[in-house]
């Protein structure tokens, strides 16, 4: 079935693969001798190459942030809501670059790639990469594209952490750092959820110590469980209540906390009774069919390890002392994974470092997932900020 592409979409897009043969030293001490990065770009680069924006993806994202790969494509890129003509990240104004990070499963070098040393899949042998390693690889991509300075580096969640790392490690190479629903480091609770996800994957009999591809299988059950746990943390309690409380609302009953039944009655067995259960199963299974388990393990470790204060005796403000960019942070009221307090913590440290920072807290029911959704105030503030970023470009030239 073909679809008519919406006019405010970047339309059909095609990823490009860039090869890098200069070894990349990783934070773990290991070295990636050569690697590939898969990249999509939207909009056009202006003559002085000043209008480029880097998008950093989160845990389950990839390079396909906007547009469609074909007219048969049923779903657009993961940040279609925010990237496109007339959207907050306006492709009429900016040249937008998004890549699949190292260790990902969207086509860049990762556990699904062939390890040149062994001639087999990397699988569990792919090095544990960190946010810092990603940003180091992103700088090389930037150089390859001939971009001296990003107009902005933008990301939500784990993507926001990459934004912060850019501001710390490459201060002269970005004008604006926009981190959405992010955090300076994970809390013990965050790490705990990640560990449950990892254990779900590694305890699946089909995991085969990470060499499942060699066995022609994959840990579907484990990855499904991991995603189910993750999914719970992305939504707020209210969001669940609204999503699975529709029947009771239709019947004129007051809220039932989203306890709508799947088939109208209890089974008195251990199968799915409530709609929320089948929803989680569905989401988890779809995810497990499209994502790599080793990549999931790597991504959660990158999250757990992120803490830019480690190089500064735990003083985060010192990490930002050399940053030159302006910061714009946004958080969402019901996000309990990276709640507003975590963004305020960042704001406080940026203020201590005397950096230029703007921060807004958006009322939204949707929890952490809100950063992917078209919430009016979010869209308006995002659009307004980036319009001004673009005005600055025109003043500078």
């Amino acid at each position, binding site marked *: 079935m073909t679809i008519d592409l919406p006019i405010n979409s970047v339309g059909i897009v095609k990823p490009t693969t860039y090869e890098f043969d200069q070894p990349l030293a990783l934070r773990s001490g290991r070295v990636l001798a050569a690697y590939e990065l898969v990249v999509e770009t939207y909009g056009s680069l202006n003559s002085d190459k000043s209008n480029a924006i880097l998008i950093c993806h989160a845990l389950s994202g990839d390079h396909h942030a906007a547009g469609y790969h074909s007219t048969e494509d049923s779903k657009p890129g993961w940040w279609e809501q925010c990237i496109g003509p007339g959207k907050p990240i306006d492709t009429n104004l900016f040249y937008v670059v998004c890549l699949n990070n190292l260790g990902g499963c969207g086509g860049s070098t990762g556990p699904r790639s062939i390890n040149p040393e062994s001639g087999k899949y990397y699988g569990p042998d792919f090095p544990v990469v960190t946010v810092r390693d990603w940003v180091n690889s992103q700088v090389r991509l930037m150089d390859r594209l001939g971009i001296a300075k990003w107009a902005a580096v933008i990301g939500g969640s784990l993507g926001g952490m990459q934004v912060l790392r850019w501001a710390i490690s490459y201060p002269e190479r970005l004008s604006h750092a926009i981190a959405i629903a992010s955090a300076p480091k994970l809390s013990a609770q965050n790490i705990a959820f990640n560990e449950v996800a990892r254990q779900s994957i590694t305890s699946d009999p089909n995991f085969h110590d990470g060499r499942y591809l060699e066995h022609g299988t994959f840990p579907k059950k484990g990855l499904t469980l991991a995603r189910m746990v993750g999914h719970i943390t992305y939504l707020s309690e209210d969001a669940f209540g609204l999503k699975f409380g529709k029947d009771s609302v239709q019947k004129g009953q007051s809220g039932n906390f989203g306890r709508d039944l799947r088939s109208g009655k209890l089974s008195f067995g251990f199968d799915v009774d409530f709609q929320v259960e089948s929803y989680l199963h569905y989401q988890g299974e779809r995810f497990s069919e499209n994502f790599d388990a080793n990549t999931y393990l790597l991504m959660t470790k990158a999250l757990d390890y992120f803490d830019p204060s480690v190089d500064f005796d735990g003083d985060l403000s010192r990490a930002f002392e050399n940053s030159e960019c302006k910061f*714009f942070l946004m958080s969402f009221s019901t996000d309990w994974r990276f709640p507003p307090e975590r963004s305020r913590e960042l704001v406080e440290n940026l*203020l201590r470092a005397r950096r230029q920072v703007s921060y807004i807290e958006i009322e939204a029911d949707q929890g952490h997932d809100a950063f992917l959704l078209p919430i009016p105030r979010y869209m308006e503030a995002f659009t307004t900020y980036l319009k001004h970023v673009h005005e600055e470009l025109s003043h500078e030239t």
Partner: protein
Amino acid sequence: MRPDLEIIQDWIDPGTRVLDLGCGDGSLLSYLRGSKNISHLGLEIDPVNINNCLARGVNVIEQDINENLSNFQSQSFDTVLLAQTLQALSKPEQLIEEMLRIGKNGIITFPNFGNWKARVYLLTKGRMPVSRFMPYQWYDTPNIHFCTVRDFDTLCREKNITVITRTVVNNEHQGTWYMKAWPNFLGEIAIYHITRSS
């Protein structure tokens, strides 16, 4: 330019750090950034105002100045501004203390309730004054802590706050010699430049 801005900008040294509490649409900071090359930050809670700040490229943080400002380090700004907001604060005394903790000096502007028009209104009508500039009824006004020039002077004395400069203007933000002579009677808007250091 608004004459009150002209007065305030004379008190701000070029290249200093300025924090505006309740910065509104950011026009004051935007102006000072242009004329004085200041480092700036505004605090605001109204989403429309915040968006106007973002449109101007004014740094703005969504934060309620009625709640604590402990995220700001002591003496981390040169000047802390509070323009036409004092009367709407839940704890004005506490905020003035915070202003002088965070900033080396503070600038406060507020409507002077001691102005003759307010006095005449109350005297003749026996009701809380309502005017074009204070258009609210007593029950729906956001302005819950009105004071007069003399009240503010007293507070500064009691709290050991030094008034560097005090001036009053009318609602068109113009000052005259007779307003300066009888500020508490003729001034409509009071503008104070205060500090803690002697």
